[in-house]
């Protein structure tokens, strides 16, 4: 019987294939709760979850909050604009103060890659990464895997094209970790300034010279957001030129397999990464991704509560 022994979920890199499959299967089985009249189970009754978001988020924060509430945990949200961080408190001090209020899980998003490992060493509650800098975004990676599995029934042997700003994308990193562990082949394309050197070493990952090469016969096309807040001004000339070379449109999607899935972690810059007809078209799985997000986050909260301190 599969067992999930981790107390924290900080990166898909830290999880085994079995761990990832268990989380996905739990999410699949929890999903129906979200479609009932009474969308609540008593599993995490009495647990307290703090959502600590140092970066803006609509989807992820709401999704984690709903996930916690559907499992009967008490959830509290803290946003940077109304936290003591604006008064100069350090992350460690904020965390120790929050810990004094005895949370069971802290779900955190932070701009600094690896900040969750720092916290995990300091605190004795569970830490879940809701995105750290350009490192990982494990819940997004897991919900993407679940959405692909919904469509194809498997992940083994899929060709997945990931296009855009790979360097700054924690979504891409989590997907690469998850997909390669589960047997998919990943093809990356993006402006050379936005593809990190050495990324092929992560597993079955191919860096393509052009977007067309990555799209060829792809089962899944995952478009990434251009992260203007994270990159400098020098990485690309302008959005229009980017869109011409690395935007998804009704013409280049034909290179992928017929009816290939189109995914995007959101928020979408319409007309930059992909045209509106692609976002709203029949091949788009964008809203299914959001729907699956709640179930995946329920599975993560459920399993870390049963994890052991490492």
């Amino acid at each position, binding site marked *: 019987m599969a*067992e999930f022994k981790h107390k924290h979920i900080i990166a898909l890199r830290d999880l085994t294939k079995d761990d990832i499959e*268990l989380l996905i299967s739990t999410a699949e*089985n*929890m999903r129906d709760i979200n479609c009932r009249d009474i969308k609540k189970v008593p599993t*995490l009754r009495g647990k307290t979850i703090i959502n600590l978001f140092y970066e803006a988020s609509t989807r992820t924060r709401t999704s984690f909050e709903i996930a916690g509430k559907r499992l009967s945990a008490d959830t509290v949200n803290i946003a940077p604009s109304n936290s003591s961080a604006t008064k100069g408190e350090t992350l460690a001090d904020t965390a120790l103060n929050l810990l004094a209020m005895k949370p069971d899980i802290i779900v955190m998003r932070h701009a600094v890659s690896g900040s969750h490992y720092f916290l995990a060493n300091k605190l004795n509650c569970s830490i879940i990464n809701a995105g750290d800098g350009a490192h990982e975004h494990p819940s997004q990676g897991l919900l993407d895997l679940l959405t692909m599995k919904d469509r194809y029934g498997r992940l083994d042997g899929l060709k997945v094209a990931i296009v855009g700003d790979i360097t700054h994308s924690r979504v891409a990193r989590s997907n690469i970790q998850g997909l390669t562990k589960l047997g998919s082949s990943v093809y990356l394309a993006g402006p050379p300034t936005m593809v990190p050197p050495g990324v092929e070493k992560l597993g079955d990952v191919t860096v393509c010279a052009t977007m067309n090469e990555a799209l060829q016969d792809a089962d899944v096309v995952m478009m990434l957001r251009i992260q203007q807040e994270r990159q400098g001004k020098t990485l690309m000339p302008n959005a229009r030129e980017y869109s011409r070379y690395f935007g998804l449109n009704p013409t280049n999607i034909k290179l992928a397999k017929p009816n290939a899935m189109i995914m995007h972690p959101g928020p979408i810059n319409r007309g930059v990464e992909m045209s509106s007809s692609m976002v709203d078209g029949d091949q788009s799985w964008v809203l299914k991704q959001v729907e699956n997000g709640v179930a995946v986050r329920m599975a993560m909260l459920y399993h870390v509560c049963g994890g052991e301190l490492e």
Partner: protein
Amino acid sequence: MTAEQTVLMDGAGIKRALTRIAHEILERNKGVADIVLVGIRSGGAFLADGIAQQISVIEGGAVPVGAVDITLYRDDCSGHLPHHPVGKTDIPFSLEGKKVILVDDVLYTGRTIRAAMDALMDFGRPQSIQLAVLIDRGHRELPIRADFVGRNVPTSQKENVQVAFDGSNQPIEVVLEK
């Protein structure tokens, strides 16, 4: 395995017990009107299929059968042991106003039944819930009793009662391990 095993019931015996339970359910409820079966995963779900089959043989016409996974309703989730894998609850019909026959393989402490009843209530308000079990081995920790019992087996708490199923989810035998 060094544990001493005794076979309490074989496949034919289990089938006879399920047939009798099917008759008793029909007798108590005066037919199949408003009856639905819900088995507790995993053993109870397989047995619910068996009882439903018998009911349709006796009365003709199918009764709805669902399965409930009680993992998320367990009362031992707060510990720090790895949490149990979550199975799928599959009740593809409304429970509103129905007579629900809850089916499990072995009735022991009653905690599983408590969890299952809580889960059912979250799906609607049944007219009644009745409990059918293949084996009642005693040692209740909650005020719960079965309405339909295949066999009462007095056991000690050190013993273990298992219902074994084959690859196509048909019950093979009931085994007592000492």
